[in-house]
């Protein structure tokens, strides 16, 4: 197991290297002219463009820039470790902002995930148990609705209802937990809900499908033949195998969401990573794009490792393979 984990961590490093290399290649290969010119003002003299290039580190060759990027990533830079440089766009060090924004995004994702698991799993299980019932049809219909509902629409609608019309919840924005836990919570509630509804719908459908598959398994019949109570058959035997695959799903979703809660962040004015990545990509802000890319790649790799370990813990068959 230890060796396996080490191997997977090395793999993570490789993924980060490859993904950043790809980001570099895309950035420099895509035909869009010289990024320096956009920070050199309206009538850029060649000298000014050169100044900008130097200040952005774009005066070096591309392989040299990539090498420097990797070196700083490993050894750190003047703003600490890992070295992520300064934003092309606002000239601010990337690292502190990455940390600040990661906190917002992680808050959003974790809260959302707890909520969607709390909704999606019971709904999926109950729908599977009451398959074909009105309850099942209503939940699955609702799930289909939330799966297909555009998140920005859902976000705007929820703001309209809960903030503008009812005034039950505060509007957009992020308040740090440290500043006021209550305000933090009330500000996060709608984003959590909007993010969670989509995923709760997906998870409910996945769990329902898994559970229906599991119900026909031989070992469930065995459990009944043993004379176990129906409750125990469901809660212990069906749920265990019905929900375990959700872990992999969750790990991948969480990893991808690290840079992927773009719309939710934008609608609710949470300055998180997704929103940042979007702006950075639009502005050709290479250091920011790279920083978020590194984080997302590492998050996806590490979370999938965690998922695999968890899976092994939960499913002994995997452990011995």
């Amino acid at each position: 197991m230890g060796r396996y984990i080490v191997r997977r961590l090395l793999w993570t490093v490789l993924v980060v290297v490859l993904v950043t290399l790809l980001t570099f290649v895309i950035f420099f290969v895509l035909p869009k002219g010289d990024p320096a010119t956009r920070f050199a003002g309206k009538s850029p003299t060649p000298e000014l463009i050169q100044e900008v290039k130097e200040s952005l580190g774009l005066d070096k060759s591309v392989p040299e820039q990539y090498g420097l990027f990797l070196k700083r990533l490993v050894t750190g830079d003047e703003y600490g470790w890992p070295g992520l440089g300064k934003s092309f766009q606002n000239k601010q060090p990337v690292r502190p902002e990455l940390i600040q924004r990661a906190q917002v995004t992680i808050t959003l994702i974790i809260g959302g995930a707890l909520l969607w698991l709390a909704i999606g799993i019971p709904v999926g299980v109950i729908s599977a148990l009451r398959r074909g019932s009105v309850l099942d049809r209503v939940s699955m219909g609702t799930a289909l609705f939330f799966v297909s509902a555009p998140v920005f629409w859902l976000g705007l609608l929820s703001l309209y209802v809960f903030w503008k019309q009812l005034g039950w919840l505060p509007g957009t924005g992020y308040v740090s937990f440290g500043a006021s836990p209550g305000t933090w919570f009330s500000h996060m509630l709608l984003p959590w809900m909007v993010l969670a509804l989509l995923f709760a719908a997906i998870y409910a459908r996945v769990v329902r499908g898994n559970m229906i598959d599991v119900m026909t398994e031989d070992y469930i019949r065995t459990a009944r033949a043993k004379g176990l109570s129906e409750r125990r058959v469901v809660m212990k035997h069906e749920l265990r195998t019905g929900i375990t695959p959700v872990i992999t799903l969750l790990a991948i979703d969480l990893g991808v969401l690290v840079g992927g809660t773009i719309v939710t962040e934008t609608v609710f004015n949470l300055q998180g990573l997704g929103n940042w990545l979007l702006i950075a990509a639009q502005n050709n802000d290479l250091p920011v794009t790279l920083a978020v890319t590194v984080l997302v790649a590492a998050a996806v790799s590490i979370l999938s490792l965690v998922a695999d370990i968890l899976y092994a813990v939960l499913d002994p068959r995997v452990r011995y393979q």
Partner: protein
Amino acid sequence: MRPRKMGTWALFGALVLAGSLGLAACGGDDSGDSDTNGGDNGAAAAKGGIYRVGTTDFGFNGGFDPSGEYLGWAWDLYSNLLTRQLTGYRHTEGAAGVELVPDVAESIPEPTDNGTTWTFTLKKGVMFGPPVNREVTSKDYVTAFERIGTESVVAQYGFYYSDIVGMKEFKEGTSKTISGITTPDDHTIVFKTTKPIGDFGYRLAMPATGPMPAEVTDCFTKAGEYGRYVISSGPYMIKGSDKLDATSCKTMKPISGFNPTKQLSMVRNPNYDAATDSTEQREALPDGFEFIINTNQKDIFDKIEAGEYEDSVDAVPPDVARRYSTDDALKDRLKSFTDDSTNYIYMNLGEAPFDDVNVRKAVNFVMDKDALRRAWGGPLYGEIGTHIAPPTLYPGSTEFDGYDPYASENNAGDLAKAQEAMKASAYDTDKDGSCDAGSCSGVLFLNRSIDPFVKMSPVIRESLAKIGIKVQVRELPTGPAYETSGNVSNRIQIGANARWGKDYPDASTFMVLFDGRNILATGNSNYALTGMTAAQAKEFKVPYPKGGVPTVDADIDTCAAAIGDERAACWVALDKKLMEEVVPWVPYMFGKNTDLLGPAVTKWDFDQFSGEAAYAHVAVDPSKQK
């Protein structure tokens, strides 16, 4: 022109920040009520309260360091609230707002030595805010110019000061000082230029030239760094400035009131003495300002309506503008002012068929400018453009009243006159008024792929088809579109991706677009290639037409050196020459800036200099805030 934030109709389209594009001249302009005249909002304006402004993104492209920052709205913040340059403006709407007035200078001097020496006397008692807490002296202005001349700072419009004597040597490092800037005493500063610069006074109103305390700025010599430490010399300072420990470079931590990703908060500068200023320039009524990033543009305008914000930097979305403009009770809260920007279609003077002036004239005649403006949303969004630089840049001149060399009924295009012009062209071989040479089809037309630009593509395609020009439309996102048109080797024949705004209220800031000496292989903004020489064409590996390319370089030089009325007349003549003889553009719209005001705003004005709200003259009633 400085890049500006752009508003788009799409809810999240506003994230596409033109502010990031050094080349973009993009005024946010939506609908607007052109009848409102700014100024007083009716209710009594009093001191106090916090004026809150929402924006989808600050859009700073120089890290808010005044030396490098090239964003109109940033200039608005510096000149209205934060820093005091030698010269300045009244921060009001219209002609009064673009008339140069002294700020820290006692007066605006007449240049001597054939217009090459400018001697300014500084007012006494102008103080830096905390933690510097000392009088602003002439040396602090020198510091600003030294930063402009320091390569690592990346002064994006440093070229305005390259004709100061000694700037070149300072930049190259052969001199430790700029010999052309001297300070005989703490309240006198003398500038010497290598040639007469008629608009030098305007250039000294630019925020990069504002006073900088070397004890702080010397710690920050990399691009954008000083943006987190801007020391006030104006009525407001960044909140938390007083907590800045300026005892050494190491002890300084970014001022807490400015978080580039969230908020910029300003409070009163305790050292500001209104006696050194004039209320005509700055009333400084609110106790503070909060500029808040809100990534949800719809939410910004909902919050303004609810009284949670007072204003936004973003353009007012058309649905909101429509509702306000049709409601008598709300009408006054919607503001719309021309922001001195020109929307134009450029034609490449080096490429057939646009290397023939008759074709270019025909395009001007045939273009349905009204339909183009409708693509932007109609008259609320701008005035029909009929010449190069917007009228505000010709203060006092009546030359352009009713001027339209390509006038047509309802601005919908005049096909008959277009055909007549086309007949004079060699590209109309059968003289039927329609372009019929081989080069008349497959004409590469560049546009942006976002609203409202995409809505213009069919209008332009159809207008040109009427005179036989068949275009091949190429649409790209804002950034790549600018990069593409700015790369001469791409040989874009005609394009509508561009807009241009002033840097300061002088027509020279538009005429640089026609200076052949400014043509660059990449990052070029003279898209029409006006004034391109055969040598340049060879260098860029693009064709050079047999008939040559018209140039106005000499006219530009003449006007640039002129001052006073002579200067204004010179630019007027050049503008007309460009429209009638050179014809590199189809200017179709002078853009407008829109603002929506919250219920608590009791006083508001438009800053013609920055093309944004005049924060120096706003006021709020805290009792109406939510």
